[in-house]
C-alpha cells in the first residue's frame, strides 16, 4: 500500500505544534495553566490515538481503556521510584519507566484480550467496561513495597513487611505519593510521534489490512483465511501498550496518583476524543484530545457554569460534525484523497 500523504501531514502538524509551543515557552509567552497542561495533553493524545486503533481501525468498542492507562501509570511510576537511586538521569529513568509501563499494559491487554476478543460488538464493550473496573479495584487494594530484599506485593492488607531501608510504593487506596515529576513535554512529544509511527505502520501493513478487513466484515475476512483472533489481538495489545506508556507519562507529571483517577469516566472521556475526532482519523483524535483537555480550563473564568457550557459545546461539536452539510463537505475530500483510515462502511459501498 502506498503511504498516504495524510500521514505525513499528521506528523508535520504534530512537529509544528510542538515547535510552536517550544518557541512560545522559551519566550515565556505560555501561561502557567498552559505549561501545566502540556504533558497531560500529550498523554491524552496518545490515549486517544491508541484507542482509535481499537475503535476506529479494529472496529471494536472498548470502554475500559483507562484500565490500561492505570496499569501503565502504577507500574511505570513504581519502576521509576524503584530506580531512583540506581538511575540518576531523569530522562533515562523515564524511558525505562515508559517501556516497562508499555510492557505490563501489553501483558494486561493480552490476558484480557484472550476472553474479550472472542466476543463482538456490545458484548465486547460491556466486558471491557468490567475489566476496566476490575483493574481499578485491584490497584485500589494493591500494596507494593521495594527494599533491599526485593519486591513485596500484597493484596487488601499491607502485609508486605517492607523493610525500613525500602519504600512502600503503592499504598492501596492512597495510590502512589511523593512521585518525582520527571515527565516532560519533549518526552510526551516523542511518545506521540512513536505512537503515530507504530499505528500508521501497523495500519499500512499487511496486518493492518487484515485488521480492517475484520472490521468491515469479519465473516468475509474469516472465509478468506484471516486469523481473526490473531489480528484482533495484535491491534488490541498495541493499543494497550501505548495506553500504558501514556499512563506512566501522565502519572509522573503529578506528585501523586490514585486508582480512582482511571475510572469509567476517564475511559468515556477518551472515547469522546476518538468519536469527536472521527473513527480511524488519527489527526482528528489528536486535535479533539488537545481541544477537549484545554476547553474546561479555558472556560474557568465562568466558574460554576463551565461544566455546563462544556457539555453544551460538546453536544454542539458532535451535532456539527454529524451534520449532513459538514459530512458532505468532508466526504468530498475523502473520495478524492486517500483517506484509507476513514472507517465508514456506507461510504466504502458508495465508492464501490
Amino acid at each position: 500500500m502506498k503511504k498516504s500523504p495524510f500521514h505525513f501531514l499528521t506528523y508535520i502538524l504534530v512537529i509544528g505544534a510542538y515547535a510552536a509551543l517550544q518557541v512560545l515557552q522559551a519566550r515565556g509567552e505560555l501561561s502557567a495553566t498552559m505549561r501545566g497542561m502540556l504533558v497531560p495533553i500529550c498523554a491524552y493524545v496518545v490515549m486517544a490515538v491508541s484507542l482509535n486503533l481499537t475503535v476506529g481501525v479494529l472496529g471494536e468498542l472498548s470502554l475500559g481503556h483507562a484500565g490500561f492507562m492505570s496499569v501503565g501509570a502504577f507500574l511505570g511510576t513504581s519502576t521509576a521510584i524503584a530506580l531512583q537511586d540506581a538511575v540518576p538521569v531523569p530522562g533515562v529513568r523515564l524511558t525505562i519507566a515508559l517501556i516497562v509501563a508499555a510492557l505490563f499494559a501489553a501483558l494486561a491487554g493480552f490476558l484480557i484480550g484472550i476472553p474479550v476478543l472472542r466476543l463482538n460488538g456490545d458484548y465486547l464493550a460491556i466486558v471491557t467496561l468490567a475489566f476496566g473496573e476490575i483493574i481499578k479495584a485491584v490497584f485500589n487494594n494493591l500494596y507494593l513495597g521495594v527494599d533491599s530484599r526485593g519486591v513485596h506485593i500484597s493484596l487488601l492488607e499491607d502485609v508486605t513487611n517492607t523493610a525500613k531501608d525500602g519504600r512502600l510504593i503503592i499504598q492501596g487506596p492512597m495510590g502512589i505519593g511523593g512521585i518525582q515529576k520527571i515527565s516532560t513535554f519533549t518526552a510526551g512529544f516523542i511518545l506521540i510521534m512513536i505512537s503515530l509511527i507504530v499505528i500508521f505502520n501497523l495500519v499500512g501493513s499487511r496486518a493492518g489490512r487484515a485488521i480492517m478487513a475484520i472490521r468491515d466484515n469479519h465473516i468475509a475476512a474469516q472465509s478468506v483465511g484471516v486469523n481473526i483472533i490473531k489480528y484482533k489481538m495484535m491491534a488490541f495489545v498495541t493499543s494497550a501498550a501505548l495506553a500504558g506508556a501514556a499512563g506512566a507519562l501522565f502519572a509522573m507529571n503529578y506528585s501523586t496518583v490514585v486508582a480512582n483517577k482511571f475510572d469509567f469516566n476517564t475511559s468515556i472521556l477518551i472515547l469522546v476524543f476518538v468519536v469527536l475526532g472521527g473513527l480511524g482519523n488519527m489527526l482528528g483524535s489528536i486535535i479533539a484530545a488537545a481541544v477537549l483537555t484545554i476547553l474546561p480550563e479555558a472556560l474557568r473564568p465562568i466558574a460554576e457554569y463551565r461544566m455546563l457550557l462544556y457539555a453544551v459545546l460538546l453536544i454542539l461539536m458532535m451535532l456539527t460534525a454529524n451534520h449532513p452539510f459538514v459530512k458532505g463537505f468532508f466526504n468530498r475530500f475523502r473520495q478524492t484523497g486517500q483517506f484509507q483510515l476513514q472507517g465508514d462502511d456506507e461510504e466504502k459501498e458508495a465508492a464501490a
Partner: protein
Amino acid sequence: MKKKLLCALLALSMLFVLAACGGAPAENTDASETETSTPAEPSTPDDTAAPDEQAELSGETETNPEPADTPNEPTPAAPVEGAFKLGGTGPLTGGAAIYGNAAKNGAQIAVDEINASDSAVKFDLRYEDDAHDAEKAVNAYNALKDWGMQISLGSVTSKPAEATSAESFADNIFSLTPSASSPATIAGKDNVFQMCFSDPNQGTASAEYIGTQNLGSKIAVIWKSDDVYSKGIRDTFLEEADAQGLEVVSDQTFSDGNATDFSVQLNDAKTKEADLVFLPMYYEPASLILAQASAMGYAPKWFGVDGMDGILTMQGFDASLAEGVMLLTPFNADSSDEATAKFVAEYEKRFGEKPNQFAADGYDCVYAYCQALTAANATPDMDAATINGLMKEQFTTMTFHGLTGTESGLTWDETGAVSKSPKGMVITNGAYVGMD
C-alpha cells in the same frame, strides 16, 4: 489540492486553540496586576520572561475578573486595592463539593470582615474548583498562579492537596491548607502548613479516648477502602487500639460503588457482639449506617471522627438517630464562645446553614494569615517568594487564637503540623457536648 486546504484549515484551528490559551498581548494587563510581581519559578530555569505570564489569562479574565460565586451568595466587593492575592483550590462541584464550598465560604466571611475593618492587611480571595481531583487541582493552582496569587490556601481535600503542595513548594508560594489532613500534604515541604490535625493523629486519639474512658471492649470498624482519609485514620486506630488492649472483632470495608447498603458490615459487627462501632468516614455514609442499624435493632455505641461533623444539619436525616454518637471535632458550632457565635450567625445569614469545621478552618486560615502578615509587616507589593520567607518565620513562632483549637491557642512546628488536639464531643439532645 482541496485536501491540503482542509488539512491546513485543521492545522490552523489546532494552532488557534493552543495559542488562545497561550499568548495574549501585554497591554491587556490591568493596573492591579502590574503592581504585583510574578511568583518565582525555580522549577523552570528556561523560563526567562516570567512577568509576561501575568498577562496570559487576562484576555479571558478581563470580562470577569472575579470568580463567579454561588447564586445564594452576595457578590463580593470589587477587588480591593493593595490587597494580598490569596488563592485556594477545593471541590466546588462534584461529590465532595460540600467541603470545598464550606471552606471557601468560611474564608470569604473572614476576608470580608477583615477588608471592612481597619486592618492594614487586606485580602483578595479567589477559589478555583478542583472537583476533588489531583489533575484538576494542579490546573486550578496554575490558573491561580496566572492570576498572580501571592499566598495560598492550598487545597481543601487531601489528595489534591498532595499534588498542589508539591507545586507550591517548587514555586516558593506559602501555603496554609484549611483541611487537607493527610501527612503527605506537608511531608518534606517547609512552606506548607496545616490548619487541621492530621489523619493519623485522629486515629490514635480516637483509640486513646475509647481505651482510657472504657467506652467499649469489643470494637467494630467500618471504613471506606478507597478513601485516603478513612484509610489513614483506620490504620493508626488499629495500631493504637492494640496498644490500648482493645479487641477489634470486626473490620469491614465499603467503597464508592457500594456505599448505600451496610447490612453486611452491620450484621458482622452485630453477630460478633461489638459494643462500639468506630466510623472513620464522612457523614453521608455514616448517616446511612446509623439509620440502617436502627432499622435492624442494633444499638451499639457509635464513635466518629471529624468527618462526622455536619451530620446533625444534614437534610433528610433524622437527627434523633445520632443521639449519643461520639465524635472528634476541633469546632463546635453550638459553642457559647462569642467569636464562634458571631461567625455561625453570619454564616447562617449568608448561606442558610450551620457552618461545619471546614468552614471554621477556612475562616481561621484567613485570620492566621492576617495576623502573620501584620506581624511581619508584609506589604502586597512583595513577591510570593519574599512573603514565603516571612510566613515561614512567622508561622513557626506565632500563637494563633481562632474558632478551632483550644484556649491556649495554636502553634505550628517546622514540619507545618498544627498543635491542635481533637476534642471529644457527644451528641446530646441534638447538640454537641464536650466529653470530658
